[in-house]
């Protein structure tokens, strides 16, 4: 057995056993008490989200902690954070496909789903944060009686375009990949109802060589488009801040720094999801320590990239000699949010260094802990980018504090619960791993062997 596929599949795997590993939890196993416990908790959390959104629409965004000088708060931070998480899925799927990484096969499906869920949740925030959310459609170009157009120069319009493109693209990319697996589920389903439902969803996929051929071409082409798209999306998000005039935002490094940060947090979340899926669905055979090792390396690389980004920010502030930029960096370390900033540095820069050690990378709980810590770090990074700049602008008379309210926390917590709920539904309704990719991997291993 050669190195490329080593440790990714069980020694005795067959095509049928792989399909069974993935499909059986879905079709033949009942959800346990633990599942329903989580489901109830997540459902309750989702209710919190719904309530806080309803109250938001009734009372207005005055219920949040945002104020005259700090006009952005949790909503934008949550948006960037969720979108960052939503970055890894399509990227993993596409980049690893194009670079022919064998460890892609077992994780790409739920990574893509994670992208969809996180991206959709992220997409909620820019709308929720509007003062008049019912006018959000004014960001779209359409013929109207006012003869007005969106204002193309605004980074928010780029955001709107990039995120909707990204979400639509990711949805279709995921769907295209999912069709053959739906056919598999259809064919393994034991009840008529399931056969019908999955059958309808599979659109009559029959694994024809012509279909596979076209599928392959489309999938690879989309993967090739995905890479620049992914880069563009978080670059644009970075430009929400970079294309401004505020100290701490107006930095040319922001687009790449945001992309790196997004992949960092996205991969981190894939690790977490992978660990949970592996345990919950009994996928130990196909999601292996080797996967965690590989993802840990990427996370580590992300952390190193953040070292570079943060370091550049500090260095440039000093080197530029701009008193406002210098004051901003001083504010990061000494201002009212300095403890949070130091925690952020620990989470993003220090904690992942553990992953230099191969023994640590192979311990799934270590990797999961590190990635959970870095989720916290990345969220702190986003909220601190916003509040550190807005609480400490150019005019000292406008320096103010930002204190989130219970509704800020409820919405953040609620969306996390909603994300979990969506994942719980996904785990019970759709195949969590791309079975046709696993089959292909097994075929490759056999060909190699």
């Amino acid at each position: 057995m050669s190195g490329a596929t080593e440790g990714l599949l069980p020694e005795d795997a067959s095509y049928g056993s792989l399909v069974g590993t993935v499909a059986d939890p879905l079709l033949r196993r009942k959800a346990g008490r633990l599942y329903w416990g989580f489901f109830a908790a997540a459902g309750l959390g989702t209710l919190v989200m719904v309530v806080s959104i309803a109250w938001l629409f009734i009372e207005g965004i005055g219920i949040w902690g945002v104020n005259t000088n700090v006009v952005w708060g949790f909503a934008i931070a949550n948006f960037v954070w969720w979108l960052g998480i939503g970055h890894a899925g399509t990227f993993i799927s596409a980049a690893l496909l194009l670079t022919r990484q064998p460890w892609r096969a077992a994780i790409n499906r739920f990574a893509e789903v994670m992208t969809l869920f996180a991206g959709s949740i992220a997409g909620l925030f820019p709308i929720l944060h509007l003062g008049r959310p019912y006018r959000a459609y004014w960001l779209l170009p359409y013929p109207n009686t006012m003869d007005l157009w969106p204002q193309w120069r605004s980074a928010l319009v780029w955001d709107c375009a990039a995120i909707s493109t990204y979400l639509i693209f990711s949805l279709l990319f995921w769907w295209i990949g999912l069709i053959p697996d739906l056919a598999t589920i259809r064919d393994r389903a034991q009840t008529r109802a399931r056969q019908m439902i999955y059958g309808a969803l599979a659109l009559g996929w029959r694994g024809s060589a012509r279909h596979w051929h076209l599928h392959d071409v489309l999938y690879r082409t989309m993967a090739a488009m995905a890479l620049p798209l992914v880069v563009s999306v978080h670059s644009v998000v970075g430009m929400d801040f970079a294309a401004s005039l505020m100290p701490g935002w107006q930095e040319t490094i922001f687009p790449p720094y945001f992309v790196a940060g997004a992949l960092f947090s996205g991969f981190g979340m894939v690790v977490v999801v992978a660990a949970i899926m592996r345990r919950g669905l009994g996928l130990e055979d196909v999601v292996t320590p080797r996967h965690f090792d590989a993802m840990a390396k990427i996370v580590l690389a992300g952390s190193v990239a953040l070292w570079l980004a943060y370091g550049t920010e500090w260095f440039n502030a000093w080197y530029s000699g701009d008193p406002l930029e210098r004051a901003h960096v001083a504010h990061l370390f000494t201002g009212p949010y300095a403890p949070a900033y130091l925690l952020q540095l620990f989470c993003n820069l220090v904690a992942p260094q553990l992953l230099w050690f191969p023994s640590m990378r192979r311990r799934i709980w270590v990797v999961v802990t590190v990635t959970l810590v870095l989720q916290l770090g990345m969220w702190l990074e986003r909220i601190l980018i916003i509040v550190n700049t807005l609480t400490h602008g150019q005019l000292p008379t406008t320096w103010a504090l930002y204190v989130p309210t219970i509704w800020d926390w409820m919405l953040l917590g609620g969306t996390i619960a909603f994300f979990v709920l969506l994942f719980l539904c996904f785990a019970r309704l759709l195949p969590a791993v791309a079975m046709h990719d696993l089959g292909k991997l097994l075929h490759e291993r056999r060909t190699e062997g």
Partner: protein
Amino acid sequence: MSAPIVLAEFRDPDTLVEAARRARAAGFKGLDAHTPFAVEGLSDALALEAPRLRPAMVCAAALGAGFVYLMCWYSGVIDYPLNLGARPLHAWPVFLVLAFEAGILAATFTGIAGFFIGTGLPRLNHPVFAGRDFDRASQDRFFLTVSDEAADAERLAALLDGLGPVSVRALQP
């Protein structure tokens, strides 16, 4: 589909490729294969035409991007020019960002549409579904199908002798 369909079932993709190659060499028409995953070499073995999806997607991308660029230019320069912080009306770097996203979107939609047109999906009812064990075509079996007036199960079985098909059967009408 007027001609009867004969299915040959295999346990292994490589065997299927070999079988396909033989069937084509034997001059069978209406060859196809049904596999749980994309098998490398199969399209060559069946001599499938390269789909012209990519050129279509590139064209769509160019059209979509061009359309959006023109829309931005028309709206910002011709239709309602506004003084926004003294920035130039023709903000091409910005228009390019939007054009790029539009291009991706147009290519994606074209690709998906091309995929459905090319595959003929959705096709919920198809004769091959009636084949015995065909539900394993999406799991762990690999089928060669021949839809040729000249083909029958015996001829195909003879041709595939030595490749060890699990079965060779004509579809029950």
